């Protein structure tokens, strides 16, 4: 084939442009979403497990750690002295730590002083799932739970970088040596994998109609409510209908499934 250098370069340029932007172009042409995250829309239909946290009730018992203790005991979450190794599924966060966009200097001290339990938000549009290269973390289609498949986790920690809530912990050291009281009914993790709250998937599997996560069960003050966001008569929807609620960092478009009554 006889081709001038100039023509070859032109052709190569067109080829490279199509190669890099071809898929997005094709999706635009076909009317699909080229950038799904920016145009994601939540719906209120179908089964979607969610949690509502009453920050008023919870703040009245600021020293209570029942939900954290129950969760960490049930799921064999290791307890490390060294904060760099910390592993947590649910923990207490300051108001400004949990809702950095909602605070201002004139805010009442009572609200700012509240510490709230925070956990994996089981986002409707989870960034951790988007970045996981092995599919080890995935969103269950049937109920919206963001699950971890420890068998597939390679410990790359992209999900930790992707999660805007710090809900994921990496096992830097062998976790079994740091579990005070092993629960034989739940596996531990191994060194080199990421872990997080699973909305008590093991309890959902056992009682799919009306599951009660370990933290909700442990709360003596009824500050945690769990239920189906798609059902208007569910406890979470009734709680949401009655009072003003916040979600953590809503501007990021993740669509959290954990709500905070203020």
């Amino acid at each position: 084939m006889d081709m001038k250098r100039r023509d070859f370069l032109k052709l190569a340029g067109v080829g490279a442009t199509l190669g890099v932007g071809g898929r997005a172009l094709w999706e635009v042409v076909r009317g699909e979403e080229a950038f799904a995250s920016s145009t994601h829309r939540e719906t209120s239909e179908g089964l979607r497990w969610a949690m509502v946290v009453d920050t008023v009730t919870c703040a009245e018992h600021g020293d209570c750690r029942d939900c954290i203790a129950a969760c960490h005991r049930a799921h064999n979450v290791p307890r490390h002295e060294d904060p760099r190794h910390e592993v947590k599924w649910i923990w207490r966060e300051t108001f400004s730590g949990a809702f950095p966009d909602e605070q201002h200097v004139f805010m009442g001290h009572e609200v700012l002083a509240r510490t709230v339990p925070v956990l994996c938000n089981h986002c409707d549009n989870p960034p951790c799932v988007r970045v996981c290269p092995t599919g080890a973390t995935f969103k269950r289609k049937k109920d919206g739970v963001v699950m971890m498949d420890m068998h597939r986790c390679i410990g790359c920690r992209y999900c930790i970088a992707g999660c805007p809530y710090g809900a994921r912990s990496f096992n830097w050291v062998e976790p079994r040596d740091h579990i005070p009281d092993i629960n034989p009914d739940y596996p531990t993790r191994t060194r080199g994998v990421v872990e997080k709250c699973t909305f008590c998937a093991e309890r959902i599997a056992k009682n799919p109609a009306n599951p009660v996560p370990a933290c909700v069960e442990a709360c003596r003050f009824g500050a945690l409510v769990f239920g189906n966001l798609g059902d208007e008569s569910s406890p979470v929807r009734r709680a949401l209908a009655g009072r003003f609620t916040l979600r953590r960092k809503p501007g990021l478009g993740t669509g959290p499934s954990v709500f905070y009554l203020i």
Partner: protein
Amino acid sequence: MYDAGKVVAGIAIFAGLVTVPIWYQASAGGSVQSLDLYRVFPVVQPGAQGFEDLPKDLALNPDGTPRECVEPTEYMRANHMAILDRWRDQVVREDVQDYISTTGKTWPHLKLTGTCLKCHQKKAEFCDRCHDRAGEKPYCWDCHLDRVAGGR
């Protein structure tokens, strides 16, 4: 092509060697469709040379009769790893909690510790003895718990 005879003969010999498992199996009377790795490279059986003292079945009822496993013993011996592999995807990823065995029986709530070790309680005797001799180091127990050993 230069040296066509040598090249073609070489390719034929290479292809023959690479497909040894398939034609060996076929010539031994097995069907090629049912070819699976564990039959070509069979798992050691209790009583085989060097494995005479392997226990035949550790899962016994209180009266000493063997308990029913999810699949026949022979099948489990050869294919337990494939079954476990499938289970873990089903339980964790597909939310299929029950196992319907080839005999048609449904086994609820599959778990390695909760289901397998409920009967085969002594991991050290049931799993490790064979795995150790076969040089097999499955990493199941990095996370799943051996209750008899105190959950360690």
